[in-house]
């Protein structure tokens, strides 16, 4: 029967060592290469640093015209844009794999296990399959809009990375309107979804698109109000500015220094789930009612683009939440003075500065992955809610509570102005409460396992 088992796993027992090594190499190597490229290119794409780096590399830039300098800078920016988009695509594919693994464990299944160790290469296989399929356009569809819709969605997704931080100096453009810009460009996604729903000329797609529009526009309000809370606490809209106004330790994070900010985070999190069309808010593509919603008529590469954005949004929403509420890339014991000292006075920063950048990037990526896992976890815990429940949740709960939190934060900032110690006290108390809650939660989880006679067992991961 050996002729029938045509997989990469050799016989019974363990995965072949070469497959494990290849999986580890790609699984860690691909994101590491992309993150390293972001690490190098995002500081170097600033004009002054780029010219200094070119000069250090032996290129005589002093004789260049202004146009030539602009061209060099535009090339650097274009490469960085390509790297950021590739990072979004790769992280989206790997999130698909990870989500399927986690969901199958939560349902007592094994999950992906055929392609590579732990089925890791499944996302590549799926992508290749989608690219090779025929790109169908329904006969009665509005062909131009139908073809254009995925690019709106992809543009809305890709533009977010312009203002998404990765580390202390690692951001494509630290705009002074950062969070406002991100809120604005993510609205482009709903335009694409609405176009997709309309142009498909299918009632399922139209229903899905309309639901998505209603949902996203409704949830923009609590999301924006909740995002205002950290903005008010730091006094800036810039993503890096918001992170710099927080400390490295948990009791210095926005989520804990203001008791209302934690409520704001909860509102922001729920609203982001709804805006990203994630379960329990995946009504626009509710397969039990709408086939696949606005995706019904799509196939091939255009379908892949929608999916890329849907799963890439996990990273985006987690990174924004980490930026706003959980201290971003702040590294303990390394303040702004340490960064300035490591940078030195020359045109190009010293090696220590690059080391600190790597450290800040690691902190940011680790925090983002934790939040990303919570999003995945919530998806496989909660069932999909009804349309009326979704609207009730938004307009009767999230919006009023968001306003209360907004006003309470104003008052809290007045209190901090009079009594600066209150922020520290709140941070300490809230963080202690969070730790106790987490411990209680893990105790409850252990009880769930032991109550039915099972035990914690990770042997078959």
């Amino acid at each position, binding site marked *: *029967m050996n002729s029938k088992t045509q997989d990469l796993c050799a016989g019974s*027992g363990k995965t072949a060592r070469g497959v494990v090594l290849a999986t580890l190499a790609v699984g860690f190597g691909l994101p590491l290469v992309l993150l390293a490229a972001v690490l190098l290119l995002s500081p170097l794409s600033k004009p002054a640093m780029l010219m200094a780096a070119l000069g250090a590399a032996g290129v005589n830039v002093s004789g260049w015209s202004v146009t030539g300098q602009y061209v060099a800078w535009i090339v650097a920016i274009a490469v960085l844009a390509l790297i950021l988009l590739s990072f979004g695509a790769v992280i989206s594919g790997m999130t698909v794999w990870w989500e399927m693994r986690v969901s199958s464990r939560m349902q007592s299944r094994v999950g992906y296990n055929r392609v590579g160790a732990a089925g890791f290469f499944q996302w590549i296989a799926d992508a290749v399959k989608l690219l090779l399929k025929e790109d169908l356009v329904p006969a009665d569809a509005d062909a131009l809009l139908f073809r254009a819709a995925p690019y709106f969605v992809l543009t809305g997704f890709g533009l977010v990375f312009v203002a998404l931080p990765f580390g202390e100096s690692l951001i494509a453009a630290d705009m002074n309107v950062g969070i406002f810009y991100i809120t604005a460009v993510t609205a482009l996604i709903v335009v694409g979804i609405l176009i997709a729903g309309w142009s498909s000329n299918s009632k399922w797609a139209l229903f899905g698109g309309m639901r998505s529009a209603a949902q996203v526009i409704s949830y923009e309000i609590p999301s924006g109000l909740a995002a205002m809370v950290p903005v008010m606490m730091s006094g800036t809209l810039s993503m890096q500015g918001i992170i710099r106004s927080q400390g490295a330790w948990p009791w210095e994070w926005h989520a804990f220094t203001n008791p209302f900010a934690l409520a704001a985070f909860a509102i922001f999190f729920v609203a982001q789930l709804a805006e990203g069309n994630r379960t329990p808010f995946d009504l626009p593509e509710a397969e039990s009612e709408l086939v696949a919603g606005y995706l019904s008529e799509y196939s091939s590469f255009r379908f892949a683009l929608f999916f890329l954005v849907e799963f890439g949004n996990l990273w985006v929403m987690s990174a924004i939440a980490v930026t706003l509420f959980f201290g971003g890339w702040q590294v303990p014991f390394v303040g702004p003075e340490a960064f300035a000292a490591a940078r030195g006075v020359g045109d190009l920063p010293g090696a220590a500065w690059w080391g600190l950048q790597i450290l800040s990037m690691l902190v940011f990526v680790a925090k983002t992955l934790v939040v990303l896992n919570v999003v995945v976890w919530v998806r496989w815990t909660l069932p999909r809610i009804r349309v009326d429940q979704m609207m009730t949740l938004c307009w009767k709960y999230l919006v009023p509570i968001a306003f209360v939190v907004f006003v309470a934060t104003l008052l809290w900032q007045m209190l901090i102005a009079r009594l600066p110690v209150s922020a520290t006290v709140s941070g300490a108390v809230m963080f202690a409460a969070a730790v106790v809650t987490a411990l209680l939660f893990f105790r409850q989880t252990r009880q769930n396992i032991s109550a039915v006679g099972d035990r914690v067992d990770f*042997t078959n991961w």
Partner: protein
Amino acid sequence: MPQSVREYTGAIRDTVKSFWHGLSITLSYLARRPTTVQYPDRTPLPVRDMLPPRYRGFLEVDNTICTGCQACERACPIGCIQITLEKDPTNPKQRLVAQFDIDESRCMFCGLCVEPCPTGAIQHTREFEGTHRYIRNLVFRWADPMNPFPVYKVDKTAEYFPRAPLGSLVRQRLETLAWDRPAPEFLPPEPPKPAAAKPAPALKAAPAPTAAAPAAKPAAAAPAAAEAPKAPAANPESK
């Protein structure tokens, strides 16, 4: 719908509680061992050995104890069993089974053929892995048309019929035959005595290849034509 303050706060409390309990339940399953097994590899035993003993997999016929009674063929509700009997030319009292085909691709594994078998020659096994590139390879031929086997004479006092170990015959078949081997062409078996085919005129031979063997290659038309007179003799028997 009007809502009291108690209902409003109660809804928030319910949400928090259901998050708390729901998330802890899913996390607890994340930390447990999955109940499903990784088929087909990484199973502690071959899957067929983990199946219950009365699992109804592929049918298997032990032709050393087959009485040729055709009870299984009559019992089959979809007619996926085809049996042809003929007389032994050397010994007119001995009947031979010249054809015992079971089309496993049509079988619905109901077990009705197993019930009437007087000796237990036809049985379900626990074999189920029948991936083949050509579906016709799933027709298992338990009698060799070129070498028919004699029917088994039942001893009235016997309490036990010596049967090959259940599953050994069909497993041997599945293991020796490649999954992507070419499909057989189902020509009727060549008669042992081609002398009987002589009087068959051309007008009778002409429709036979087109009607009986649409998949046969043109080169195979000659043996099919030679077979034509035998077909009426076989038909009344198998109905």
